C-alpha cells in the first residue's frame, strides 16, 4: 500500500483500465500536454491513437464519444472543468442520457465524462461551477462525486467498466488529499454505495465531494464539545444510496446536508427532501442545508471564500440542531 493523491488516483485508474482493456481510450482538450497531471506517461504507453487531443469543441467530441461507445469502444472524456460541459449539453442530455431509452435498449453507451469542480481559487463565475445537481434532473446519467483518493480510484475504475454513461465530477479542493491505495488491479468500488466516513450518534452530516473533509473537520471539533456527529458520504448521486442516509438519520434523529453547489435544487436539497419524506418520524429538528450562497462566484478572494460551505458553518448548524433537542424534549 502506498499513499497517493486524488489526482494520482485518477491517473492510476485510467492507466490500469487502459492497460486492461484496449477498447478504453481517452480524449479531451490538452490531454497530451497533461494539464492537471492525470495522463502522465500516457502517450508513451498507449500512443496518440488512444490518447487524443481534441479541438475546443465539447459538443463535437463528447458526441463523438457517444458514437464511439455505441460501436463498442469505451471512451473516457476529460472535459477538464465542469463549466465546459455546458456547450455539450445537447449531446449529454439528448443523446447520451436518452439513446438507450428511446431506442428500446438497442444502444449501449459505456463512456465516462470526467470534469473537475474548479472553485475556491479566484477563477470567477464561469470557471467555478459545482454543477452535478443539474444532471440529476434527467434520468440516464450515473453521477459520481467522490471525496477521497481511495474512493476516486475504485469508483473511476468501476465507471470505466460500467455499461452505462457516467459523469465523474472531481472536486479540486480534494486534489491533494491522500489515501492508502490498494495494489489490486481489480480494486473497484461500485457506484450507488455510500460510505460512513465517521460514525456518530447525535447527528448525521450528509456531505458531498469537498463537503466531506469539511464535515470531518467539523465533526472532530464537535466531538470535543461532546457532540457525536456521523459523516455520511453518498459518493455517487445517481444511483443514490438512500438506505445509508436514512439508516443514519433514523439512528441519530438529526440531519445536516453539506453541498458545495448552490442551494436551489442541489443534491443536498434533494437529500434533505428524501430525509423529510422517509425519516420524518425519526427527526428531532429540521433538516438543515449547508450550501453555497445563492449568488455567483466572484473573482476577489476576500469575498469568494465565505460563500462556500465551511467547517464553521457546519459546526454552527450542528450546535443549533443539537440545542433544539433540549427545547423539544422539554
Amino acid at each position: 500500500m502506498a499513499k497517493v493523491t486524488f489526482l494520482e488516483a485518477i491517473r492510476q485508474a485510467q492507466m490500469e483500465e487502459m492497460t486492461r482493456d484496449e477498447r478504453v481510450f481517452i480524449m479531451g482538450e490538452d490531454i497530451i500536454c497533461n494539464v492537471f497531471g492525470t495522463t502522465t506517461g500516457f502517450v508513451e504507453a498507449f500512443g496518440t491513437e488512444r490518447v487524443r487531443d481534441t479541438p475546443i469543441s465539447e459538443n463535437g467530441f463528447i458526441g463523438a464519444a457517444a458514437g464511439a461507445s455505441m460501436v463498442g469502444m469505451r471512451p473516457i472524456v476529460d472535459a477538464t472543468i465542469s463549466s465546459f460541459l455546458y456547450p455539450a449539453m445537447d449531446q449529454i442530455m439528448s443523446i447520451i442520457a436518452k439513446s438507450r431509452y428511446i431506442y428500446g435498449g438497442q444502444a449501449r453507451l459505456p463512456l465516462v465524462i470526467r470534469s473537475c469542480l474548479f472553485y475556491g481559487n479566484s477563477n470567477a463565475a464561469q470557471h467555478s461551477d459545482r454543477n452535478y445537481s443539474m444532471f440529476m434532473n434527467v434520468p440516464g446519467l450515473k453521477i459520481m462525486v467522490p471525496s477521497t483518493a481511495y474512493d476516486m480510484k475504485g469508483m473511476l475504475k468501476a465507471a470505466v467498466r460500467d455499461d452505462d454513461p457516467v459523469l465523474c465530477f472531481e472536486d479540486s479542493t480534494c486534489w491533494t488529499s491522500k489515501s492508502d491505495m490498494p495494489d489490486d488491479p481489480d480494486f473497484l468500488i461500485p457506484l450507488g454505495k455510500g460510505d460512513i466516513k465517521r460514525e456518530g450518534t447525535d447527528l448525521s452530516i450528509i456531505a458531498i465531494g469537498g463537503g466531506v473533509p469539511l464535515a470531518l473537520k467539523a465533526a472532530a471539533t464537535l466531538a470535543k464539545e461532546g457532540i457525536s456527529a456521523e459523516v455520511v458520504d453518498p459518493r455517487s448521486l445517481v444511483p443514490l444510496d438512500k438506505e445509508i442516509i436514512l439508516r443514519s438519520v433514523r439512528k441519530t434523529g438529526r440531519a445536516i446536508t453539506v453541498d458545495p453547489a448552490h442551494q436551489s435544487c442541489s443534491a443536498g436539497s434533494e437529500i434533505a427532501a428524501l430525509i423529510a419524506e422517509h425519516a420524518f418520524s425519526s427527526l428531532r429538528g429540521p433538516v438543515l442545508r449547508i450550501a453555497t450562497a445563492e449568488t455567483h462566484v466572484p473573482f476577489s478572494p476576500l469575498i469568494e471564500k465565505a460563500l462556500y460551505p465551511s467547517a464553521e458553518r457546519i459546526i454552527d448548524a450542528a450546535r443549533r440542531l443539537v440545542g433544539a433537542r433540549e427545547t423539544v424534549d422539554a
Partner: protein
Amino acid sequence: MTDGQNDRSLEKYRRMQRIRQFEDLAEAIHAQGEIPGALHTYAGQEASGVGACMALNTEDYMVGTHRSHGHPIAKGAKLRPLMAELLGKATGICKGKGGSMHLSDFSVGSLGETSIVGSGVPVAAGAALGSKMQGNGRVALCFFGDGATNEGAFHEGLNIAAIWKLPAIFVCENNGYAVSTPASVAVPVKDIAERAKAYGMPSIIVDGQDVDAVEAAVAEAVERARTGGGPTFVETKTYRYADHAVNMGRILLDRGAEVDEWRERDPLKLYRAKLIAAGTAADILDRIEKEVADEVADALQFARDSAYPTQEEAFDDVFVDRLPIPDFIKA
C-alpha cells in the same frame, strides 16, 4: 443490363416502394387516430435514402433524423417492428418508447434517428472513429437536412471527422425547408455542399430524385472512406411532399404549385420509367408493388395484434439494469 444489375435495380425500386407504401398506410391510420403523436413523413425523398443506403453494407453504420421512417427501410429493416413502433406497441423496434421520430433498427447498422436537429452528426463522427480504431473497415453515414447545417453540432462533427480523416459520409438531404423556413433565407450559400469546403472536405451535389445517381455519389464517398481518404459531403437535392409533420403546417406554409412540380419528378415514378425504358417488364414492377403492399399490410396486422408495453416497462432501458418501480406505479 446484366441480371446482377437488374436485381440491384429491382431492390432499389422495392425499397422505395416499401417506404412510400409504409408511409401512405401510416398516414391513413394516423388520420384515424391509430398512431399517436406527430408523423414526420419522408415521401418525396425516397431516392435519397435508398440510393445512399444501397451504397453501404449492412454492417456499416447509419445515423438519421426525426424524419426517421425512410432511413431504416432504405437500409433493409423489417417492416413489422417499425409499424408496431408507430402504434406504440411492445413489439416495436424501440419497444414503444421511441415512436415516429426514432425508427432506428440497430440490426441493420442504425445508431439512432435523433429528433434534436443536427445532433446525429457528432455521433456519426464518433462511430467512424470507433471503426477506424477497431480497423474493421466499416463506414458511418449520417443523414441530416438543410436545417441541421446551421447547428453547431453539424460544424463540430464535420470538423472532427475532417481533422481525424474518419471514414464518414455526411449526406445532407436538402428538401428545401426547415419546418417552414426555406433554406434560401436560412443558409447564405447557394449549395449547402459549399460548407464542406471550410473543412477541407470533398463534396458532391446530386439529384436527390435519381436513386442511381445518389447511389453512385455515395458509393464514391464510401470508397474514399474505406480506403483512408476521410469523409465526404454529399448534398442530395430533394423535396418532401407533406408538411414538416403530417397536417401540421397547412396554414403556416403555402408552397403553391411547387409541390406539384416536384411530384412530376417523383423518384418512384422516374425510376419505374427508367427501368421500363431499359427493358424491365412492367409486370415485374407491378408484382413488386403488390408484394410490398402485402408486406405493409402484414406489418400493420402484426402491429395491431401486438400488445402495448406494460407500465413497468417505462422503467427499462434508462440504464442497463431496470430502475426501481415507484409505489404509485405498482398500485
